[in-house]
């Protein structure tokens, strides 16, 4: 067997919140066997090329990964995702309930595949990190969740809550049912180091299974190779933590490639 295994990546159709049909980017190893699934929740600017790279990276490491396009309702298939993101922003963003429905739909898509083990992880970046925290607290059937620098998990200004985002995720922590991995840059302004500490304090107080990794010399989005924020050393270690966490909790025996 070759060290580097093949993968297949494509845009697929999935059923999201309310049964709405939308697009998702899906990648899986092509070798024989069964694979755990991971839902990738994209960041606030939208369903971007870097998000597809994350999906393929997960497939490269032995996971069937899917990233639902959370803004698909704003346009037609084939329309540029950044334009849909602009419309969503002008409309005040997407509702948490809708995102949770879309994540649940993506999880169902993964479970329905013949090569699925049934184990499901969720990973999200930026606003997707916050969505991951929410999913870990509100969606059944998640085996491991990774929050990468999700902002607004702690809400200090009640005016930041509204019809679309009615509850601060931190207030749902008691309902968290899966292990949580948190990855944060200490120079980040949202979440700040203090907010990360307060999130950890709540997890600890409630006896949740979690591990947080904080990185000096890194801010927001330091995994993102397409941004000036990219920090190679911290990102390499962060990815190692992510795959170690998924391997332990999703039993990805098929994954044998060290995180790069």
């Amino acid at each position, binding site marked *: 067997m070759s060290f580097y295994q093949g993968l297949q990546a494509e845009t697929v159709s999935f059923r999201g919140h309310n049964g709405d049909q939308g697009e998702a980017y899906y990648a899986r190893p092509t070798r024989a066997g069964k694979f755990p699934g991971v839902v990738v929740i994209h960041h606030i*600017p939208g369903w971007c090329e870097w998000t597809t790279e994350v999906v393929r990276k997960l497939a490269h490491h032995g996971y069937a990964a899917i990233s639902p396009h959370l803004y698909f309702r704003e346009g037609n298939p084939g329309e540029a995702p*950044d334009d849909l993101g602009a419309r969503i*922003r002008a409309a*005040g963003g997407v509702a948490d309930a809708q995102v949770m429905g879309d994540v649940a739909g993506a999880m169902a898509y993964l479970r329905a595949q013949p090569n699925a083990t049934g184990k499901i992880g969720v990973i999200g970046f930026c606003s997707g990190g916050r969505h991951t925290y929410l999913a870990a607290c509100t969606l059944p059937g998640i085996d491991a969740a990774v929050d990468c620098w999700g902002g607004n998990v702690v809400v200090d200004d009640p005016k930041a809550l509204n019809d679309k985002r009615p509850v601060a995720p931190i207030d749902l922590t008691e309902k968290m049912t899966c292990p949580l991995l948190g990855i944060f840059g200490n120079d980040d302004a*949202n979440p700040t180091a203090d907010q990360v500490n307060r999130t950890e304090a709540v997890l600890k107080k409630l006896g949740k299974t979690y591990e947080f990794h904080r990185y000096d010399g890194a801010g927001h*989005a330091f995994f993102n190779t397409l941004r000036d924020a990219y920090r190679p050393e911290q990102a390499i270690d962060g990815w190692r933590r992510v795959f170690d966490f998924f391997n332990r909790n999703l039993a990805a025996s098929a994954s044998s490639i060290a995180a790069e």
Partner: protein
Amino acid sequence: MCSYIVEKAALVGSAKGRKGWMKIDTANVYYDHPYHSTLDHVLAIDFTNEGEGGRDRVAVELSADSARALIDRILAALASGEAAHALPAPSVPVAAE
């Protein structure tokens, strides 16, 4: 900053986008993570025509410093342009009424 905070400005004008020229009536302005720029945060402006549904846009993503410099140059251009295009002062004194 992972926010959905948007400042809206009503406009009268036109912009050239993917489909050519279009009338615009709105600028959605925000300072947040970009889609294309490599910067952590950008001052982004989406010029749209909300009166026609707002589906097409002309977009820019600017660094904070260059956005401030642009504001300054816009004001300078308006000042110099308005001065240059102002009617010349009358050569014959106008009788006071």
